């Protein structure tokens, strides 16, 4: 009896899959309006981690707040995509740094552009001849190389002080006193900076051997922490 039930369930699932109209690479059914419950981002699935170890009342995040947080991230399919801690794609990494005014075409040894161009292997780029797709989960070498690129990019970003940035033109990362600005850090990390970001960044500068080194370390670590996963 159990076998008959399982067989019929399997047949039903196969039939349902076969009836899908969308391409196989489609994450969602592209129905409007979005059905929250149909997605990985919907309530009741793994994304909806209400029982947080921190935040919310008694360790439980208010469901309303979860919905608001998700809406701040984007549409449900974007929220779903960002559910997994996916590696920042190679092309995306380049685009982000170019947006911040980093010369990604530079061939100067150990410049961000050079490290980026020569770092395709460690960064987990697809190898078509070996039928190896671009790495999805970040490996140690991918993250180490990514952070290496960020460390090199920090020098260029500070040198231009975001003046060459296309992401947030007119924003200064460091003010005339040498202190980081909240807008500048927001531009760097791609989301509103928290007061702690500003405090820690300036504290790092004060602990470093000199201001320039401290600023570079702060920019490199801010970039790295904000872009560990997508």
């Amino acid at each position, binding site marked *: 009896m159990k076998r008959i039930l399982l067989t019929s369930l399997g047949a039903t699932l196969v039939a349902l899959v076969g009836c899908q109209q969308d391409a196989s690479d489609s994450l969602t059914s592209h129905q409007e309006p979005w059905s929250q419950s149909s997605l990985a981002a919907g309530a009741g699935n793994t994304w909806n981690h209400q029982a947080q170890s921190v935040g919310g009342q008694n360790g439980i995040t208010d469901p309303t707040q979860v919905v608001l947080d998700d809406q701040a991230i984007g549409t449900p399919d974007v929220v779903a995509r960002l*559910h997994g*801690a996916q590696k920042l794609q190679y092309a995306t990494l380049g685009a982000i740094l170019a947006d911040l005014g980093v010369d990604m075409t530079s061939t100067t040894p*150990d410049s961000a552009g050079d490290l980026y161009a020569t770092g395709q292997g460690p960064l987990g780029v697809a190898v078509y*001849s070996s039928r190896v797709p671009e790495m999805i989960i970040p490996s140690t070498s*991918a*993250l180490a190389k990514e952070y*290496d690129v960020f*460390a090199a990019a920090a020098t260029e970003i500070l040198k231009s002080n975001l003046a060459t940035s296309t992401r947030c033109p007119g924003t200064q990362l460091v003010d005339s006193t040498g202190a980081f600005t909240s807008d500048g850090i927001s531009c760097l990390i791609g989301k509103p900076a928290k007061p702690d970001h500003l405090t820690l960044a300036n504290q*790092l500068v004060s602990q470093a051997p000199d201001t320039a080194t401290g600023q570079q370390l*702060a920019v490199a670590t801010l970039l790295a922490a904000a872009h560990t996963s997508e």
Partner: protein
Amino acid sequence: MADPRLKSLRGAGRRQFIKWSTAVAAVLGLERSRYLDVLSDKAGVAMADGASCASTAKSVHLIGDNGGLAWFTQLFPYPDIAQANNPAFAYYANTATVATGTTNPLVYSPASPFQTLPANRQMTVFVAGTNQTHTKTPTSGLTIGNNGLIASVSAIQAANPTLLPVMAMNPFVFGSAPGAASPATVADSSGLVDLFNSAASKTLLSTPQNAGLDEAYFKAFLSLNSIAPRPSVAKVYDTSKVAVNLLGRNLATQLAVTAADDARYGITASTQSNIVEIAHALCTGVKAFGLGLTSCLVLPAMQDDPHPAFQNMQTLTTNVQTLGKILDAFMADCMALPDPAGCTGKTLADSMVMTITGDTPKTGLTRSGWPDGTVDNHNLVMVWGGGWLKTGWFGNLDASGNLTTWDPNTGGTGTATSQTLGTPAASAVAYAVAKGDARQVENFGGTAPPGVIVTNNT
């Protein structure tokens, strides 16, 4: 005082007890040394020694794609072909020495490595897999059930975590398996060193103070991410912390190949670049293994489709001799390094497994043009099993061109085709990596190898 019931535990029960007691010690927050003391008291010194050893072996996988495997048939020749002394056969030498003490027949060519090692540290060669001529990513011998062998091996090795679980040079075959690691891929052997040679470690993070600040503030900024407390990112965030630590270190000088290394590995200015790549990869690899940085190294071998190899016997002989020296030097390095897991009295060689596979071994019967086709479309899986496999040839190609296969249940002559013997051969490899834990082999779709093929380590 040791409990005789615990002291006499063997096989799976012994392994289970060690795993269970290790877990309990971890839960109780017992220091490792204290745990080993207790184990020594209650279950004997041998059990405590076993617990301090890594439960899995490191592994090196040479993939001789595009005919590259054929070169290794000159180091580990078909026994009958090597002894036939037939100048038409694809065997470079006119002498062959029969190895003594191996379970199955094994002969050395003059350039064969490992000739001074004991019988249980010799090569095992399986007639197994399919001829996949001119494939850049040959899967023959590298598939275990529905899983990739190397992916499965990396999952088995996860029991003893390392900084970069798999380092792989392109092109390579990996496959998939539940729990498999993500390979850190590089373009060539110098890329293996570059994995541990960040630009930042030479500039911004060149001082311990700066490296320390970088690591500390990275962790602080990471914790500010709104997603940070969520369990779904915990694993990646752990990886990121290792990565940022790695960024501040520069191990290039410890891993780089020196002139002395080249001399030991038989590399000269005139050595072919594809042979140099093997030497440098293995040399860097053994240093990385010794430092506990990695568990698995995958590299392409030769890749040169050597149809005309026998047209220039001098070059052929030189190349084969150099390949033999490289493998000997690699194993000597492994034997000179202590086991990175800290296992008393053991060396890295006691925790090492090496496989050599490829798309085709080419025919052993004809040296002229060294054709790609093999009798019954067979292929070979060559393994250095670190004492966990019975040694010698399983299957044979005789001087009349008749292929004999082997029985995966009895180890003797069998009726199975080479194609169907791929998984049993791969299972034996996985068994060796799992250091005799047959359940690990079955977990990944393999077949538990019987005692006639594998052995308990001595």
